[in-house]
């Protein structure tokens, strides 16, 4: 009187792969949406120096960039210029830039804000030092000199 009768040998039903494309598409869209990069158009030429002792920059969302180098447009001369966001700036704009960058972040994350200096090899230290002084005044003490990794030989 068994209610559950063995129904002989039944084939295991194959898993339908019809939903597989949907899953993959979902992943695809996820990656497409999340990898939107805010690519700043560089107005200055930057050929970074290289060093052996380099570290990877973590938390890229907590990094603000300052670009220094020769302008790409040759008619602007060959003196090193500072670029903040998408425009040329002067040393005096740095403190305001730092304040804005700080306000754009979560309050809890603000103390981890790093300023990355992307500076061209040939730049004179005068400009860089001026910026460092401004950063000190603005209270942005964490800095990162952007360099490429050199192979140890």
């Amino acid at each position, binding site marked *: 009187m068994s209610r559950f009768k063995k129904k002989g040998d039944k084939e295991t039903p194959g898993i339908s*792969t*019809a939903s*597989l*494309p949907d899953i*993959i*598409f979902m*992943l*695809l869209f996820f*990656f*497409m949406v999340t*990898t939107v*990069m805010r690519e700043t158009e560089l107005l200055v030429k930057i050929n970074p*120096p290289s*060093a*052996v*002792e*380099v*570290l*990877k*920059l973590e938390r*890229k969302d907590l*990094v603000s960039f300052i670009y220094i180098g020769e302008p790409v447009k040759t008619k602007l001369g060959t*003196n*090193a210029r500072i670029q903040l966001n998408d425009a040329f700036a002067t040393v005096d704009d740095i403190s305001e830039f730092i304040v804005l960058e700080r306000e754009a972040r979560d309050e809890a994350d603000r103390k981890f804000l*790093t300023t*990355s200096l992307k*500076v*061209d*090899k*040939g*730049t*004179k*230290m*005068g*400009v*860089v*030092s001026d910026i*460092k*002084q401004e*950063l*000190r*005044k603005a*209270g*942005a*003490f*964490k*800095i*990162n*000199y*952007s*360099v*490429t*990794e050199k192979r140890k030989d």
Partner: protein
Amino acid sequence: MARKTPEFSASSMADIAFLLLIFFLVTTTMDVTTGINRILPPPPDPTVKPPDIKDRNIMNILVSRSDRLMVNGKGMELSSLKDEVKGFMIPHFPDDENFPETKLVEIELLGATHRSRGIISLKNDRGTSYDMYIQIQDELAQAFTELRNEFSQRKFGKNYADLPEDKAKAVSKAIPVPVSEAEPEDVGGK
């Protein structure tokens, strides 16, 4: 005559989507930002007098506007800077007149340790190139990494980078990185 539309095979759809997915995964590898991390000192307080430091405790590194290196008044090649810094920063005990003083400090996990009181003062000209500046920063960083590695090999038999957090902290206390950057001199042109 109602004709049945032929069934559209969806099995290749997954492959197409996979292909796209892999394409996006590969192309969106953003350039990893690598760099040298530094902490800037807070602005100097005019009311506080800078501490007096004995001459023997300071190693003066000067970089001229033509990217030439001078250590304690003598010219030097960039390639020998690392060894010079290492020799300077290794704690010398018993006391040696030609090297910085040492201080006996109590450090957790290490006990009483002789710590060098040496300070490296780095000064560059406004005309120094950024490349040279980074090269020097890099040489200094390498010197300290090697010192720490040697020290932790001796104490714990491991490289500094492989140490657990508490031991790494002890080593970094025993061998600090006392690099002080002077405000650049206003002699070179911008």
